């Protein structure tokens, strides 16, 4: 399942569904809202593009690391401290591929999927700075 949604997911059910024939390892990544003195986290996505990008990342991870199953669920909306933001579930025949595949997916999401986070505090809020490795090329 690849999705951008407001609601949470049942991680246990995802793990059960990820046990495809040949599975020897399942890695779950669960990114949660950290208690950095914030009241809430606000998440926003360019949904149509973000879903396509997630699908592309899942496909590439499956190819590179011979994954048997991939789920990526990224939540949007307002989330409280401790709530799940991003759940990645991958299964593979062996643990090296499962760990490497999971790591590849999260790093690729951070690099290029159009999703933004704002930390809300009692005094206002602040957009979490993103990475921008592009630039150069033609003058603008």
């Amino acid at each position, binding site marked *: 399942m690849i999705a951008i949604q407001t609601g949470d997911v049942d991680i246990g059910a995802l793990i059960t569904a990820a046990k495809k024939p040949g599975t020897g390892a399942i890695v779950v990544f669960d990114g949660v809202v950290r208690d950095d003195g914030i009241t809430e986290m606000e998440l926003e996505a360019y949904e149509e593009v973000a879903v396509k990008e997630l699908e592309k990342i899942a496909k590439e991870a499956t190819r590179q690391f011979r994954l048997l199953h991939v789920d990526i669920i990224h939540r949007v909306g307002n989330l409280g401290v401790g709530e799940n933001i991003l759940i990645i579930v991958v299964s593979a025949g062996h643990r090296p591929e499962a760990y490497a595949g999971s790591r590849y997916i999260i790093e690729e999401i951070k690099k290029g999927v159009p999703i933004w986070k704002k930390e809300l505090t009692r005094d206002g809020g602040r957009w979490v700075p*993103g990475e*921008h490795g*592009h630039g150069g090329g033609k003058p603008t």
Partner: protein
Amino acid sequence: MTVKIRFFARFRELLGTDILTDVTAGTTLRSLITTISQRNPEGHAAIFDENGTFHEFVILMKNGKRIELGDAADTSVADGDEIAVFPPVAGG
């Protein structure tokens, strides 16, 4: 010709989003974004520097496809196009 402009994150807060605007033939991506962003000086300053050059971190898309900043002055917009303008991504 009508095009839709979508700003995200901080740009959205400053300039709004899902802005439908009429454009004339030959309008470029760069001129369109310049015109729309001038509605709010703070929004314009978030996207362009004092010389009217895109800040290098700005990301542009036309119909879901990335357009390099250096190509924005040579990229024309057409009826029904969806233009997206956003700061660096920070998901995960």
